[in-house]
Each structure stands twice: as structure tokens, then as C-alpha cells.
């Protein structure tokens, strides 16, 4: 600290004081800036004094995204459905997304819990003093937003790179679909019910990127539960479904008449592949590749591919 010389005029002394105060403010500000707020998908703002070091994730897509942006080592607990990457399988499991074990979560002493917006446990955890950030991506834009938000939350730089990689990967998969096979009308069954993937969902966007048309219109929402008759009337060129749903497809009334069923233009994905396809996260390029391979394989089978 400089000694204030008595030979300084009062004005000069004032300027020096002002400069010291300004310096102090500037130096202090970054320390204060460490405290930040994150707004989750429900509009709730959560304040953090430091980036969270212990993270519990209750949604598989969020688990995968956290690992993709390089914060995998910060995960201390996951839900029972999170299974990628391999390291995650060794973490303690705290129940399902809908029925998480409150005690187990609290015992892990998390700095933040990542949950879906539809989870009831958020209230309980907040009442116990645990910070909860609720994120649930449904569309492609959601995925980019969630990646950015997680990067912001965990104070990890590199989040935009992950988003760009996803876009690039999907685009590359799209390139692999030859023009002759584009324009086909597709029905994608996302889960039993049947729930279809509409064009607004992230799956629907990938289908569009691959040059395929969706028989489900946008007015039905991202993942509507549809009447199987709708599929019969629309008569898609190609059907994509998981092994569980595909099993009884032929037995649905009227489905025997479908061109896709008769010509066996049905892509059936195994359980692992279904996991990749239905999670809006960093493995979307792989999902796009799976779908592209489905299209090209079908095309090759029928001798339509070049």
C-alpha cells in the first residue's frame, strides 16, 4: 500500500483513492462473479457459489451429455437406466427417474441433482436443501440448449464443441443416404402405446436431415400416442421400431396390408440401439447413422441402391 504523501494535493489524493477503490472493485468482482445463477427448464433459478463438483443425474440423456462435455468424473450417482459410457455403470444407482431413492441421493452429498422436469422428487430434494436443476430435451433445439446449460452449470468450456460435433455427425450420416432413397415416408415408433416420433422431436429432426418424410404431422406434437389406424391410412414406405414394439406389429389389425410390412421394409432395432435412438444427447450422430444404415440396407436389399 502506497504511503499517501502529504505533498499530494487534495484532488490528487482523491483521484488516488478513487483508483484504489476501482482496483479493489475490479479485483473483487471476479471473486463475486463466481457466484452464478442457472435457470432450469421450469423457470426456476438456482444459485451456485462454485461450480458443482458432485453431480447426481436422474435422466440418461443428461448423464451422457455430462460425460460428453468432459465432466464425467464429477458424476457421483446416476439413475438405473443410465448405462453409457461404461464408467457410468460402476456408479451407485439411486433408483429410476420416476421413483428415485431420496435417502440414497442425499447420502451421496451432491452439489446438484439433474432431473427431468416431470419429476416429483425435485420438490422433496429442494425441501431438504439439495439443489436441483430440471432439464428435459425433446427437440433438437432443446438438445443444443441443454448442452449449453450444462456447460454453464458445470463451468466447463467445450460445450459448444459438443453441440457442433452432434450437428456435424448427423449431417455426415445424412450424406451417406443416396438421393435415390430419399423422400421415403417413414413411421418411427418411439415406444409402446404406440407412441410415434413426430417431426418436432429430435428423432423427427434427424429423419428430416436424412431426407425422409414423416407420416406424422407436426400438429400432433413431438411424441404423440397415436391410433394405429393412422399408420394404416398413411401407408408408410418404411417403418422403424424397437424390438419390443416390432414383435406384435404384424398382428395389429390392418397392418398386414401395409406395403412396408408385406415387403418387410421394417427396421427392427435391438435394445442397445433403442437406447441410442431415444436419448437426446451426444450419441445422436450414432442414432442418425443407425437410421441411415437402415435406409441404405433396405435399399440394397431391394437393389435400389447404387
Amino acid at each position: 500500500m502506497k504511503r499517501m504523501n502529504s505533498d499530494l494535493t487534495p484532488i490528487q489524493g482523491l483521484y488516488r483513492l478513487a483508483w484504489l477503490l476501482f482496483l479493489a472493485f475490479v479485483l473483487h468482482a471476479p471473486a463475486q462473479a463466481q457466484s452464478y445463477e442457472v435457470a432450469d427448464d421450469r423457470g426456476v433459478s438456482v444459485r451456485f457459489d462454485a461450480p458443482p463438483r458432485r453431480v447426481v443425474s436422474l435422466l440418461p440423456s443428461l448423464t451422457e451429455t455430462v460425460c460428453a462435455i468432459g465432466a464425467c468424473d464429477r458424476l457421483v450417482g446416476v439413475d438405473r437406466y443410465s448405462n453409457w459410457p461404461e464408467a457410468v455403470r460402476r456408479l451407485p444407482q439411486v433408483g429410476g427417474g420416476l421413483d428415485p431413492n431420496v435417502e440414497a441421493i442425499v447420502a451421496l452429498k451432491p452439489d446438484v441433482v439433474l432431473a427431468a422436469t416431470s419429476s416429483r422428487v425435485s420438490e422433496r430434494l429442494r425441501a431438504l436443501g439439495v439443489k436441483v436443476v430440471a432439464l428435459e430435451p425433446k427437440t433438437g433445439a432443446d438438445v443444443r440448449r441443454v448442452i449449453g446449460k450444462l456447460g454453464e452449470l458445470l463451468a466447463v468450456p467445450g460445450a459448444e464443441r459438443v453441440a457442433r460435433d452432434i450437428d456435424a455427425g448427423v449431417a455426415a450420416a445424412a450424406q451417406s443416404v443416396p438421393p435415390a432413397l430419399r423422400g421415403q415416408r417413414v413411421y418411427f415408433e418411439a415406444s409402446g402405446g404406440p407412441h410415434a416420433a413426430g417431426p418436432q422431436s429430435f428423432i423427427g429432426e434427424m429423419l428430416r436431415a436424412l431426407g425422409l418424410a414423416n407420416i406424422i404431422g407436426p400438429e400432433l406434437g413431438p411424441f404423440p400416442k397415436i391410433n394405429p389406424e393412422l399408420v394404416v391410412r398413411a401407408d408408410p414406405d418404411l417403418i422403424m421400431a424397437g424390438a419390443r414394439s416390432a414383435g406384435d406389429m404384424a398382428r395389429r389389425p390392418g397392418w398386414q396390408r401395409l406395403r412396408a410390412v408385406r415387403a418387410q421394409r421394417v427396421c427392427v432395432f435391438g435394445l442397445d440401439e433403442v437406447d441410442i435412438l431415444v436419448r437426446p444427447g451426444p450419441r445422436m450422430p450414432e442414432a442418425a447413422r443407425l437410421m441411415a444404415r437402415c435406409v441404405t440396407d433396405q435399399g440394397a436389399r431391394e437393389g435400389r441402391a447404387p
Partner: protein
Amino acid sequence: MTRAPWLALALLLLACLALAVGVSVGSTGFDSLRHALQDPVARQIVAEIRLPRTLGAWLTGALLGLGGAVAQGLFRNPLADPFLLGSASGAMLAVAVALAWWGAPAAAAALVPRLGLTGAAFVGALGGVMLTLLLAQGVQHTLRLLLAGVVVGHVLGAVKDLVTLAAPEVLAAMVAFMLGNTSLIGWQACGVMAAVLLPALALAWALARVLDGLSLGEATAHSLGLPLAPMRAALVSVLALATGAAVAQAGLVGFVGLAAPHLVRSLARLTHGPLVVLSALMGGLLLAVADIVARVLIAPQELPVGVLTAVLGGTYLLWLMYRRTRGGGGR
């Protein structure tokens, strides 16, 4: 007749035992209890998670047991349960609507998150009962009340199905609610339930003689000078509030309301005054034990407590039927 106080004491002691066990078991096991004094997280687990959860399960069971005794007395039907008057379907519809709205960003700042699912379920339960009363045009005719309850149950259930079709993403959460869940009960929830249980018990006990008179038939009850209409209305309110509070906190837990009065009656022959109190104590014990079993059976996973009570209750009813057909039907 002097059995009642001893039975009450026994049920309370067993409840304390259940509380002690409930505090010691959970996904982190006995360690949390041992380290509760030193480790703040362990202390939080024991004092803020396990203790209110076990106590909350007991309070929920007590509310349901009370409701069951009142329902069986009001309708003179041993198969009556507290959800008869549309409270279950009303709560389910309200929860479905709340979940569907919750997803929409517009509702984020609105009433719904503040009210929460518990508030929605409570309001829905009361609404269902009021709709039943409206349809039955008052409490005078028991048969009309029963029929109205069935109708309301079906209609509200259909509306709930429409809601879940329009917003299919809430279906999984709805099922979780319907299976019954005590894992989210904290101290605030316990306070709310206790605040409902005590006045409900007092009122039911004061009105118990109406239930006694009703057990002899409506004509005799009338001839005994019992003011049936206002007392019935009061009893229906007790039923609505008790089941509403229980459903709001723990979802639809079945069979506790049905089985608790039966179990009490199999142990002692009582008029309705002691019966409603002992049914509450028995119901509380049943659900507290079910909650512990739900936590322990497939640890570290948990069973939804409603599944357990359904299995246990169903088994009990089967045994009742078997005993009755074997004994040649005493009633």
C-alpha cells in the same frame, strides 16, 4: 368392552417399535443411525428423511383407517373403503391435469407449482366428493350416495384418461402416483396430516353414536332421535378430508382403509366410538410396517407401498372368503 384401551396401548407400542425400525433401515442401512451424532448428512438422513417418512406413513395409514371405519359405518357395508365417494378418481384427475399443465412453460409461474401435486390431489379429492354429493342430492339416501360415487368414479376416470391421452408423457408419473408412494413425505407433510387427523378423529368419535344407530337400520336410527341428515353430512366431510389428506401425500394406497376396521373387529367387539379410534391406530401400524417392508424387501430398490398393501390386503380378503365359505357363512 374393557379390551379397547389395552388394544389401543398395544397398537401404540407396536407403532413406536415400527418407528424405531423405520428410522434404522434404508438404503444406507444402520450406519446412518450410528453416525447420526457426528455426521450431519447421516443426521439429515435419519431426522429429515427416515423419521418423517415413517411417521408420515403411520399418519397416512391412520387417516385411511379412520376413513374406512367411517365409510363402513355410513354405508353399513363391510366392503366399503374410504375411496367410495369419488375421492380417488377426483384426486387422480387433478394430479393428471396438474402434471399435464406442469410441462407447459406457461404454467411455470402460475398456481400449479406453488400448489404442488399434493395440493392438487387434495383439492381433487374434495371436488370428487362434492360432485358425488351433488349427484346424490344430499346425504339422505345411502344407496343413492353409493351409486353416485360409482358414477362419479367412472366419469372422472374417463376424463383422466382423456387428459393422459392428450399429454401421454404424464402417464408414467400418473402410474407412480396411483401405486402409492410414501418416499416423499417430509416434516411439512406430517404436520398437515396430523392437523387433519386430530380434528377428524375427534369429530368421528363424537358422531360415533350416529354410526351405531345406523347399524340398526335407518328407521331405528330415526326412532332413536338421531339427527341423521346433519350428522351424515358431517361424517361425509370427515371422510372427504381424511382421504383427501392421505391421498395428497401418499397417492392411492389401497386396502388399508378396507382392512383396518376388519382387523380391529376381529380382535374385539366394539361400538363405533372405540372402533374409529382403533381403526386409525391399526391403519397407521399397517402402513408403517408396509412402508418398512417396501424399503427392505428388494433393497436398495424400493417397492411402491401401494403394491404391497394390495398384495397383503388381497391375501387377507382371500383368507376371509375362505374362512367364511368353510365356516358355512355366519353372516
